[in-house]
């Protein structure tokens, strides 16, 4: 046998081995994926750290630089940003207060959203409440639409004239100016975010409750435990992992939330880390901004690490699904109707009012005038030269969103972005799925798995910020991308890699490896197998993944807000713009447009994937 080895030289054998490894499709895909992930996930992360610890061109105006007479050669290592953010007179305003605000909001939001969502889940899954299905569907609406429309609606109702601008609905109706704490700042932010994030807890916990084998509970009851004891000693421990998981999920998302604190906090100079980061970037303080970004990533990284520790696996951010043994519902007795009424009121106020108020506001000729005579369709379909009764141009001479070329450009950009991103994301999902599942156990597969999870811990605003500096100049084969449409697509695809990786691996796991091997034995090459066997069998997952990313990208604000330019602006950033300048009707009309697109997209997803929403988590 050693004869054979000497016959064929060792290098030749080595080359053969490489060639053979490289001819395996899962290896090729794994390598391609690794390169992509290095470029669009790993390098941005490195770049973030690098930027936080080096001078940039704009740093020459920093007082610390001028006082100490340092020459801030761009790119040179420095701790000045760290010092400015963490140990300087600026620290209090630039870091400590935003940090405390972030913690305050996140804690408040987590507690409210979690307890409300869990109780609601229990009521709907486990009791004899009438109309459970309807409630279940209505309660998931906030999950489908983005978080910030609620904040816009809040502003609309509770804004006061003290900060300036037109009065809100509350002031209009009751002739009382609402106090500042009700109009802006932590309380409205917490309430608005809770109205969105409770749906996550609701979905996670109801999923867990529905899968509990109720025989476990019945056994406890047979052993003489009271309903309350069963709940405390059996049910709660069983759903505790999912509650914890929802807790940490909500927490890490709370840290990164941007739109709501921006709309409800910035007008009164109430900053969180995410809005502080945004304003630092806008003020050319990117080094400082990146130190803040690092802190945010650290915080959400820790919370996810805890999640993994507690739940024991990375898939803890996947909600459980399956069929448990159906339990006999708990009788609510005379509480039934009280709870029913409370729920109806909640659905009306918490779910429908924001949508209704935004629609209404988009139909007002003059903001703040809620009388019927003020009704107009101008902001939807009006022409630019439309005059009102007093002969003044409505909407300052801007046509309604459905016939305004500038707005339609935004609509088109949004749709284009969502389509491109969804296409690449779902395509990538299949590649990731194949590379990870078919090569399970190899180093390459593990590396890809870990790297594709990494964007999950980046808050959207931080991820956008990284891309901003990273691709401002050409790197390697990639030209400078700032201001291009491509960078929006790139950042959206990269940020969604964790989701596409999850759907992709799940879809690929469902395809028994032997189905592909049977094709291989029949002489089908990889492409043939892919087109004829793998793709048809994963198609539903692909379509659902496509729609899910479509909706998520469509409503993404924090990720792209730093990256758009007038040419590439999308619907969400236009809303942000209009909210900032106080031109609400347009913003509201566009918001409603996004809401409509999100809701109809979800209906389509459900058709393709006959499962409930609990299976997929959007942004």
């Amino acid at each position, binding site marked *: *046998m050693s004869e*054979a*080895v000497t016959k*064929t030289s060792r290098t030749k*054998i*080595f080359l*053969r*081995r490489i060639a*053979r490894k490289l001819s395996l499709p899962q290896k090729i895909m794994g390598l391609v994926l690794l390169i992509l992930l290095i470029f669009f996930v790993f390098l941005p992360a490195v770049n973030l750290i690098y930027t936080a610890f080096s001078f940039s061109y704009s740093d020459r105006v920093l007082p610390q630089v001028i006082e100490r007479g340092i020459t801030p050669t761009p790119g040179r290592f420095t701790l000045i940003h760290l010092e400015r953010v963490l140990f300087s007179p600026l620290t209090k305003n630039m870091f400590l207060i935003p940090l405390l605000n972030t913690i305050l909001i996140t804690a408040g939001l987590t507690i409210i959203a979690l307890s409300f969502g869990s109780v609601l889940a229990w009521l709907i899954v486990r009791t004899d409440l009438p109309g459970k299905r309807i409630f279940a569907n209505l309660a998931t609406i906030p999950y489908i639409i983005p978080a910030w429309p609620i904040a816009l609606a809040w502003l609309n109702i509770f804004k006061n004239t003290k900060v300036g601008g037109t009065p809100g609905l509350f002031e209009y109706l009751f002739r009382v100016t609402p106090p500042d704490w009700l109009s802006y700042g932590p309380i409205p932010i917490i309430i608005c975010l809770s109205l969105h994030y409770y749906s996550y807890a609701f979905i996670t916990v109801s999923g867990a409750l529905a899968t509990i084998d109720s025989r476990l509970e019945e056994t406890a009851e047979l052993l003489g435990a009271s309903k309350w004891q069963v709940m405390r000693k059996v049910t709660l421990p069983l759903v505790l992992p999912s509650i914890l998981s929802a807790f940490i999920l909500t927490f890490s998302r709370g840290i990164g939330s941007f739109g709501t604190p921006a709309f409800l906090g910035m007008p009164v100079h109430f900053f969180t880390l995410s809005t502080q980061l945004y304003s630092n970037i806008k003020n050319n303080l990117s080094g400082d901004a990146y130190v803040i970004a690092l802190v945010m990533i650290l915080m959400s990284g820790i919370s996810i690490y805890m999640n993994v520790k507690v739940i024991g696996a990375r898939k803890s951010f996947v909600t459980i699904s399956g069929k448990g043994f159906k339990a006999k519902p708990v009788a609510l007795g005379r509480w039934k109707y009280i709870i029913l009424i409370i729920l109806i009121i909640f659905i009306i106020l918490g779910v429908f009012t924001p949508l209704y108020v935004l629609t209404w506001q988009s139909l007002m000729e003059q903001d703040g005038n809620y009388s019927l005579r003020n009704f107009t369709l101008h902001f939807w379909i009006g022409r630019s030269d439309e005059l009102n009764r007093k002969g003044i141009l409505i909407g300052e001479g801007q046509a309604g969103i459905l016939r305004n070329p500038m707005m339609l450009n935004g609509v088109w950009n949004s749709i284009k972005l969502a389509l491109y991103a969804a296409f690449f994301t779902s395509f990538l999902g299949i590649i990731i799925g194949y590379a990870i599942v078919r090569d399970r156990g190899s180093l390459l597969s593990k590396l890809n798995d870990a790297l594709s999870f990494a964007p999950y811990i980046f808050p959207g605003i931080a991820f956008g910020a990284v891309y901003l500096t990273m691709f401002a100049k050409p790197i390697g084969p990639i030209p400078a991308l700032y201001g291009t449409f491509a960078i929006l697509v790139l950042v959206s695809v990269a940020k969604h890699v964790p989701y596409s990786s999850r759907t992709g691996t799940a879809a690929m796991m469902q395809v*028994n490896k*032997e*189905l592909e*091997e*049977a*094709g*291989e*034995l*029949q*002489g*089908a090459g990889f492409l*043939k197998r892919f087109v*004829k*066997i793998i793709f*048809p*069998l994963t198609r539903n997952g692909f379509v659902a993944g496509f729609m899910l990313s479509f909706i998520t990208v469509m409503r993404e604000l924090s990720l792209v807000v730093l990256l758009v330019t007038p040419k590439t602006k999308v619907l969400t950033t236009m809303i942000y713009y209009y909210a900032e300048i106080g031109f609400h009707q347009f913003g509201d009309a566009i918001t409603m447009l996004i809401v409509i697109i999100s809701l109809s997209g979800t209906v389509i997803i459900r058709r393709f994937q006959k499962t409930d929403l609990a299976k997929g988590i959007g942004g």
Partner: protein
Amino acid sequence: MAKTAKIKIENLTKRWGNVEAIKNMNLTIEEGDFITLLGPSGCGKTTTLRSIAGLEEPSGGRIYLDGKLVFSKEEEISIPPSRRNLGLVFQSYALWPHMTVFENIAFGLKIKKLPKNEIERMVLKTLSDMKLEGYENRYPQELSGGQQQRIAIARMIINRPDIYLMDEPLSNLDAKLRVDMRAELKELHQKSGATTVYVTHDQVEAMTMSTKICIMRDGRMHQVGSPEEVYRKPVDLFVADFISNPKMNFFEGRLISKGGNPVIEAAGFELKVDPRTVGNIETFTVAVRPEDFFITEKGVEYTVTNQLPAGSSTIVIVERGNDKISLLFEGHFKTATGSKIRLSVKEGLFNLFDKGTGKRIY
């Protein structure tokens, strides 16, 4: 000159981390053989089959097909499965659920870019050979297990491979269908003459169908031989036990001298042996198959404690002190439970094993 073997496996090993699924396996399979890989679950049968097919990369060793080296770890040679000219029926059948029966069977022919009418003719012919006419437009999920199994076979044979590999194709079928399919598969092999490697953990299946049986355990090959050989001359206790249905009877045996002749005394029986085969060993493990006892006036008295009639045969459990024996009798057994019978072992139909190594002595 010796004829080249159809399949030759040399020093094959396969490891997954610490799990050694195949340990240094050597096996030669001649053209036209129907060889069965037989062994308990997890012994490495599927892994062996997949290594031959090229779907699994062994950790070491070589594989030759028709004398041609298709795999060698040392030389980093591995011919892809599609160029090994073999067909495989998976344990799960691996029928494509999104294709009709016709499309499933025609897949390989379409890859070869055969003309359409030729494909149609061949598929319909194969379907009729497999008694599946009229099912071509159904989806696999709409068929019974036996029909699915035949489609999996049809999909394999239509490409006319040199070698058929089948991984427990009958394990998902009910008992009746399994017996029918055994006959069909045997017939298929006889008609096509294709070398067949067949995996099963059912020893009856192996005995009825194979020309050769390869018995494996824990990734190691214990014995390769004809059904008759492994049945009559099992190399060790494991093979003896595994190939027996119902369970083999094992007794402790002692060499004694009876009237000057050496005999083995075990469970009351006295078994005649040739002194040359036993040499100077004194104690043995004696194995007697349940079917190798008979009732005779001169036999040893045992009490019937249980009866398990199965129509054509009856398993009878008898006891005598600490000795317990399973017997297999043709037809109906007429003696009542509790009564006594006198038994003897058929002349020469027993095996002796070394108590230490478990290897067969006689």
